[in-house]
């Protein structure tokens, strides 16, 4: 018999939901569900009370609770937000074993020896975790990870459960078979075993443990064996401490808060240069960063910046500057705001700027030529300088993407942002309704409203089954001036997202040539006409 390690488990209930609420700025009492592959994987209390359950299909969940906010499940973000909690635990008890975001274990023996008792260790840890701003944390102590996890689930808010040494098997004996489907190892036990056990009349772990192990192994295979071991209180003898990642964060705290963009940049520059220096020293390259800005009011703004090449210190500072400028002009009328001025002022003081490298790779993998073709230093410098003067989205690069409308097929990205790769562009996919012939030279960013009239001057409409009310004869580009249409063809249907909006996206295309031998590509939804592009 293996003796399981004595485990101290910290559980933050509903961590995925809490993280999503924090990141999206959602109020706590609003129904929220996180979905993965169309299935609800977590939901908030209020959604639960409306009848939304885990494992439900999204459609059904929305049917039960029409106000439900549905967000994609993002385990990476949860892990990232859990990182400070792990650090807080590590402050008090070293060697944290991470089961999943929201659930972490440490060895209890050392801690109880150091603090003089398990209860005292638990209290110290609980207090410290609460001090880090975690509203609800529960702690349990038991023999083995499984028992400790189950004990933590039984703890009341802000309290702890201690299962005495050697009592774990008895504690587990009272639990229902359902716990196999709800815990961390749910995926491992997700087969037919729990249901079959219930049908066999085995409803709690005590009854399972009472069965002969060899027969359970025979009947259910390795899953059954593992379940039997856990039910009998046998578990792993050691914990694996998580590898603490190398600190690659440039964090600048402003005390007191700072509301001048230039000052923030100047104060950040030291940290940023250190970060870039560390990256260079460890022979790493970084081409994606996450920049987080905390404001005085408690708001947090986070943004990921991708770069086609590796970041230099100046590039990083530029991105912080643009993010702050975005913050600065968020409330203001930004229509006429182009470029930037030196004395930009934030309405809300900045208290913290944090830059985290998102994807870091060994520099050797990105030797010259393999990592795209970095343009000439001279070109990069000149264009970056121009971007400084015109603003982040003043200088663009472009590529062709997939889509039905021509404006969607044109992908524009600010200089210094990575363009989508071939898979994201989806150009090679079939796009029914794409245009034959040469591509139009001018594609309007904003489709222009025009009028197409029949001979007598009444508007041409496209009815059901693409029936025209008259022959397109006159084209009114603006105002009262009309020119005669000399040739035309259409309607060519553009059917996209018909499942989403019933009427609006049922567009038809026409090609027209007017008296001035100008050729137009126009769109209509049946009654309203727009010019999409011009051939010239």
């Amino acid at each position: 018999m293996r003796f399981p390690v004595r485990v101290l488990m910290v559980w933050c209930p509903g961590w995925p939901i809490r993280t999503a609420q924090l990141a999206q700025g959602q109020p706590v009492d609003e129904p929220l569900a996180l979905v993965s592959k169309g299935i609800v994987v977590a939901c908030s209390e209020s959604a639960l009370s409306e009848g939304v359950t885990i494992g439900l299909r999204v459609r059904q969940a929305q049917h039960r609770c029409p106000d439900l906010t549905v967000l994609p499940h993002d385990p990476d973000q949860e892990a990232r937000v859990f990182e400070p909690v792990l650090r807080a635990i590590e402050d008090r008890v070293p060697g944290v074993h991470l089961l999943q975001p929201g659930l972490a274990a440490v060895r209890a023996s050392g801690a109880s020896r150091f603090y003089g008792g398990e209860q005292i260790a638990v209290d110290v840890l609980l207090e410290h975790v609460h001090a880090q701003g975690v509203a609800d944390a529960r702690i349990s102590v038991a023999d083995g990870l499984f028992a400790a996890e189950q004990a933590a689930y039984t703890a009341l808010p802000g309290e702890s459960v201690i299962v005495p040494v050697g009592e774990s098997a008895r504690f587990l004996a009272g639990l229902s078979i359902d716990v196999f489907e709800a815990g961390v190892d749910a995926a491992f036990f997700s087969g037919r075993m729990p249901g079959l056990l219930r049908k066999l009349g085995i409803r709690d772990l005590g009854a399972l443990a009472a069965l002969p192990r060899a027969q359970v192994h025979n009947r259910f295979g390795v899953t059954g064996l593992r379940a039997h071991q856990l039910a009998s209180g046998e578990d792993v003898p050691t914990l694996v401490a998580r590898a603490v990642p190398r600190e690659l964060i440039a964090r600048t705290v402003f005390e007191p808060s700072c509301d001048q963009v230039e000052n923030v940049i100047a104060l950040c520059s030291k940290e940023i240069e250190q970060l870039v220096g560390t990256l260079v020293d460890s022979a790493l390259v970084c081409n994606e960063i996450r920049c987080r800005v905390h404001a005085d009011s408690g708001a947090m703004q986070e943004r990921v910046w991708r770069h086609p090449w590796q970041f230099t210190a100046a590039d990083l500072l530029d991105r912080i500057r643009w993010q702050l400028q975005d913050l600065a002009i968020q409330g203001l009328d930004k229509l006429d705001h182009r470029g930037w001025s030196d004395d930009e002022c934030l309405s809300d003081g900045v208290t913290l700027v944090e830059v985290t490298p998102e994807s870091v790779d060994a520099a050797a993998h990105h030797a010259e030529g393999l990592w795209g073709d970095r343009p000439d230093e001279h070109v990069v410098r000149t264009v970056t300088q121009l971007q400084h003067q015109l603003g982040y989205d003043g200088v663009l690069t472009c590529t062709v993407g997939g889509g039905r409308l021509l404006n969607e097929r044109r992908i524009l990205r600010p200089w210094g942002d990575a363009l989508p790769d071939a898979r994201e562009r989806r150009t090679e996919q079939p796009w029914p309704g794409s245009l034959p012939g040469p591509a139009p030279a001018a594609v309007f960013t904003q489709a222009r409203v025009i009028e197409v009239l029949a001979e007598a001057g009444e508007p041409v409409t496209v009815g059901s089954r693409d029936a025209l009310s008259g022959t397109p004869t006159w084209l009114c580009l603006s105002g009262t001036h009309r020119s005669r249409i000399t040739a035309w063809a259409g309607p060519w249907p553009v059917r996209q997202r018909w499942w989403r909006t019933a009427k609006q996206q049922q567009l038809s295309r026409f090609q027209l040539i007017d008296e001035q031998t100008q050729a137009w590509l126009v769109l209509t939804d049946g009654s309203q006409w727009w010019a999409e592009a011009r051939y010239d």
Partner: protein
Amino acid sequence: MLLCPPESLPAGPAVAVADLQSLIQRREAAVSTPKDTSSLPAHPGLAAAFPTGLRAGVVYSLTGSTSMAMAMLAGPSRNGSWCGVVGLPDLGVEAAVDWQVRLDRLILVPAPPPLRWITAVAALVEIADVVVAAPPSRLSDGDAARLMARLRTRGATLVVTGPWKRAAAVVRATTTGWDGLGQGHGCLVRQHLRLDITERHLQRSVSLTLPGDR
């Protein structure tokens, strides 16, 4: 002792001035000509219109066709030059690809503020061989002269899609007809274009069919 015969003395200053002037002219020519005489490759589809390629270091004024602007961009671009487009937010990127413009070496400044037009064009001229720009709402003569001097030294070509006072050549494109589109049937296949090119006070007309042999 006299260094030169006395009878040559009165002529001395005049000769020296003439010498100096010719020297200055030679120097100026040396600075400006090497780039001036060179040219940028034109797209094969435009061979009829620009048999010797685009002249480097000058301004072309082009009206009437965005396709032509892309075609003029395409020649140097397919040879690997960087290119820039200023003030044309409606540029059709797919059409540019059809003209074999390399998008990874194309920089767009879709809507520069009126006062920054010259900044944007001057910056792009530094790195690009061809810059296509919508005409500025207003530009002082001094700025225009400085820009043209910069173009000469860099050997870059600026194509302004509108009027320009001291353009080396004025290209007026007129669409004469389209092939393929009927009354309710067909689709656009080909464009017939007439180019009226006024260069050094000589006018020539060229008819083009687009897309031609690309």
